[in-house]
C-alpha cells in the first residue's frame, strides 16, 4: 500500500521554481531517500508534504487519503533544524508533542533511552548540544509510534560521533518496519540507510527506484602501473572498457557489461604492462548521483 502518493506537485516563489511537477510514490515500509544537491527542492517538498508550505499546483495524499484530517498525527517529522521551546526541558517539550498527537504523556523512558537523553531529561533545551537537540527531535518524531518518519538532513551539523549515533538510531527505527523518508545531500548516509532513492535537482525528479537499480550493474575498477601513460593508451582503445578517467596515479575504469577485471589484467599483461594496482570497487551512489545530476 502506498504511504505517500505525489502527483505533479509544484511550488513557486515568484519566478523561482522550487518544485516542478514532481511525481513520486513511497510504499509503506520503504526507507526512501531523497537525494539532491543543496537548493534542489528536498526541504521544500517535505515542507509541502507536512502542510508548512502550500503547493502552487498538483496534489499529494497520505495513506491513499484514508486517514482524513488527522493523518499528520501518524507522521513523525524533523524538518531542517530541531525546533523546541528553549526554556522547557526534554520531558516538557515531548509532553507538548504528546498532547498534539493526542497520546498519553508522560513520555516513556524507553524513548529517551533510545535517543540517550534520559540523564538530561530535566535540563532546559537551551542547554543542549546540537547533537542532543537533534536526538530530542528524533525522540519527538517517535512520540505516538508514528507509521511514517520524515527526516530532513538528520545529521546536519553533527560531529562524526553524533552522525554515527543518529544513523544508528535511524537504522534501529527502520528495523521496526516503519516507513522512513530521509532527505539528505550526504550520499553515503542515504546509501547506508535507504532501500529506495529519488534524485531531484532544481525541483525536478531525475531518477527514482531501489538503490540497487539506481546503481549500475557494472563494477568500477581502479588500476595502476609503473607506466601509467602506456596503460592509459592501451585501455583508451580497448573494447572491454566503457569509460576511462584519471585519478591521480591511477585510472578509474568502467567496464562494458559482462566484462570483468581478470580480462583487464590479462590484456595488460599481453601488452607487456604489469599492473601494480588493481582494485574492484562497487559502483557508489556518489558516482551515479554525480552522473545523473550532471545531465
Amino acid at each position, binding site marked *: 500500500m502506498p504511504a505517500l502518493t505525489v502527483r505533479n506537485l509544484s511550488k513557486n516563489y515568484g519566478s523561482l521554481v522550487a518544485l516542478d511537477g514532481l511525481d513520486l510514490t513511497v510504499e509503506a515500509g520503504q526507507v526512501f531517500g531523497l537525494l539532491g544537491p543543496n537548493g534542489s527542492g528536498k526541504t521544500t517538498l517535505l515542507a509541502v508534504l*507536512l*502542510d*508548512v*508550505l*502550500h503547493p502552487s499546483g498538483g496534489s499529494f495524499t497520505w495513506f491513499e487519503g484514508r486517514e482524513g*484530517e*488527522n493523518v*499528520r*498525527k*501518524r*507522521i513523525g*517529522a524533523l*524538518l531542517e*533544524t530541531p*525546533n*523546541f*521551546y*528553549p*526554556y*522547557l526541558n526534554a520531558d*516538557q517539550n515531548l*509532553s*507538548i*508533542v504528546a*498532547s*498534539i*498527537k*493526542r497520546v498519553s504523556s508522560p513520555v516513556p523512558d524507553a524513548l529517551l533511552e533510545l535517543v540517550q537523553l534520559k540523564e538530561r531529561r530535566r535540563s532546559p533545551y537551551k542547554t543542549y548540544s546540537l547533537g542532543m537537540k537533534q536526538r530530542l527531535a528524533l525522540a*519527538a518524531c517517535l512520540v505516538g509510534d508514528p507509521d511514517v518518519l520524515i527526516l530532513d538532513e538528520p545529521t546536519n551539523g553533527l560531529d562524526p560521533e553524533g552522525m554515527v549515533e543518529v544513523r544508528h538510531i535511524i537504522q534501529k527505527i527502520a528495523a521496526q518496519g516503519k516507513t522512513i523518508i530521509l532527505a539528505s545531500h550526504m550520499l553515503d548516509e542515504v546509501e547506508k540507510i535507504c532501500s529506495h532513492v529519488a534524485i531531484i535537482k532544481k525541483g525536478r525528479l531525475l531518477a527514482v527506484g531501489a538503490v540497487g537499480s539506481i546503481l549500475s550493474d557494472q563494477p568500477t575498477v581502479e588500476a595502476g602501473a609503473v607506466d601509467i601513460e602506456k596503460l592509459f593508451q592501451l585501455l583508451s582503445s580497448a573494447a572491454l572498457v566503457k569509460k576511462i578517467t584519471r585519478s591521480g596515479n591511477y585510472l578509474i575504469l568502467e567496464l562494458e557489461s559482462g566484462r570483468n577485471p581478470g580480462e583487464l589484467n590479462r590484456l595488460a599483461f599481453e601488452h607487456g604492462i604489469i599492473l601494480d594496482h588493481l582494485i574492484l570497487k562497487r559502483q557508489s551512489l556518489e558516482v551515479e548521483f554525480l552522473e545523473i545530476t550532471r545531465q
Partner: protein
Amino acid sequence: MNPLHLLKLEWKRYWPNGTFRMIGALYASSFALVLFLARAAGRNMTFTSNGVTSHPLAGLFVYPQNWELLACIGSWMNVFLLGSLGVFMITMEFSNRTLRQSVIFGMTRLEVAVSKLVWSVALALAATGLYILLVFGWEVLDGWGLGLPLAGSVASFFLQALGYLFLGTLAGLFIRQTAPAVLAYLAYVFILETVCRWVFYFYVAKTRLLLFLPNQVLWALTPLPVPESVNHLVHSNAFIKPLSPAEADLTALVYLGMFAMLFCRRIVKSDL
C-alpha cells in the same frame, strides 16, 4: 477540536515562560499599585467649602462608580500589557519556529489558530477575574461591604482585555518580530489611528463613523467615570456625540469576530 484540550496545550507552552510570567506579574502588580495610589489620592484630595470638607471626585470612590473607575484604570494595563503580551505570544512562537513545528507535529493550521484564540479568551477572563477581585478587595479594605459587580463594567472590561490581546496577536502574526511588532501595535493604538481620525475629520468628513475605528471602540468600552454634570457638559459640547456603552459593546463584539477571522485566515492561508 476540543477547546479544553487546546487550552491545556497552550498552558504547557506559556506558563513556564519567564517573559509570560513577568508580564502577567507586572499586569497584576501595576493594576494593584495604581488602585492603591488612587485610594490614597482619593483620601488626600479634599477641599473645604462653607465649613464642609469634601472630595471633588468623591463620587468616584464609592459603589457603584468604583467599578467603573477601576475598569478605567485597568484599561491602561490592558492596552499596554495585555496588548504586548498578545504580541509576545505570537512572536515568541515565530522566533523559536514553534508555530510551524506544531503543524509539523500534526496540528492542523486551524487548530493552531484556534488554540491561540482560546488562550487569549482565557487570559482575558483571568484579567477580568483580577479586576473583580481588586474591586472586592478595595470594598472590603475601605469597609464598605461587598457591592455586587456592575455587569456592564465587567463585560466591557472583558471585551476590552480580549480586544487588545487580539490586536496584539494580529500585530505579532503580521510582523513576526517582537520589538517591531510591539512598536507597531503601540504606534497604531496611540498615534496612527488618532492621526488618521483627525485628518479625516478635518479634511474629509465630520462623521460619527470615525468613532467606530477599532481602537476608538476598545477605548470607549471603559470611559472615565466623571460626574453626571461633567458628562453632560462634555457631551453637549463634543464635536461628535461619544459612543454609548451599548454601541461600544456591540461594535467591539463585531471587531472581535473580525480579528479572530483575520487571525485564523492568516494562519491557514500563509506559508509558515
